[in-house]
């Protein structure tokens, strides 16, 4: 297995801001899949990342103000991808860190998963490495 893809994508960063509207989930899933396709990630990993951004943004949308925007940042690294999604949320984010099904899925498919709430702005940070088995590496 190659250590680094032929055209190294290390350090590439893309940032997307979209309306806090569920009809933009497709847009974000496609963007994340498009970014992952630039790397050595296999189809299974790309599929997992599609689910990851979707579940995370769905959590944000459940409490984001409708007038708001969701930001999605994607960084490509040597052996993995980092995705950060954030929005201004109203109160606590339901389903985060608890035993919600969204969280269960996120926790299973990612290597790292973190939530931060700074002054009402909630950020979900996710990391996934390429070279791991189907069971997650415990963070």
């Amino acid at each position, binding site marked *: 297995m190659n250590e680094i893809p032929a055209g190294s994508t290390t350090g590439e960063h893309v940032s997307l801001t979209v309306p806090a*509207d*569920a*009809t933009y*989930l*497709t847009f974000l*899933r496609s963007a994340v899949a498009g970014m992952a396709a630039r790397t050595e990630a296999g189809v*299974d990993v790309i*599929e*997992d990342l*599609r*689910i990851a951004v*979707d*579940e995370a943004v*769905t959590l944000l*949308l459940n409490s984001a103000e409708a007038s708001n925007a969701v930001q999605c940042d994607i960084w490509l690294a040597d052996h993995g991808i980092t995705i950060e999604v954030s929005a201004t949320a109203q109160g606590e984010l339901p389903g985060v860190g608890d035993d*919600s*099904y*969204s969280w*269960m*899925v996120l926790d*299973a*498919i990612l290597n790292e998963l973190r939530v931060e709430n700074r002054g009402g702005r909630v950020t979900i940070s996710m990391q996934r490495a390429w070279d791991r088995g189907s069971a997650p590496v415990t963070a």
Partner: protein
Amino acid sequence: MDIKTSPGNIDTTCWVTVSGDLDLSNVETLNEALRTMQDAGFVHLVVDLGAVAFIDSTGFGVLVEAMRRSRTTGGDVGLVVKQTHVKRVMEITGLDRVFVTSDTPEDVEAQLIVGVQADNS
């Protein structure tokens, strides 16, 4: 997302074929379609996810709700599942032990009719 409904092999059963992407933006449409079929008297629903390109836990949430409604009337909801990534989400959430599943609607319907219950242990 596209939803098609057709009568099953026996008249208490309905097949619901879903295709495309299923997420927060359109789960309510699926929810209403399933409710409509249940209100029309179909005891068993065979939901064919074989042509679904994407489904997340919000999508499964609607299927779980429909399954609960059907079970209160002695019926059930079974799923046609083919894609590895759909099976994967079901395994992670434990849904593979909740739903009757198979890779053809005929087979799911047969299991529902004879009253096979998913292994809920």
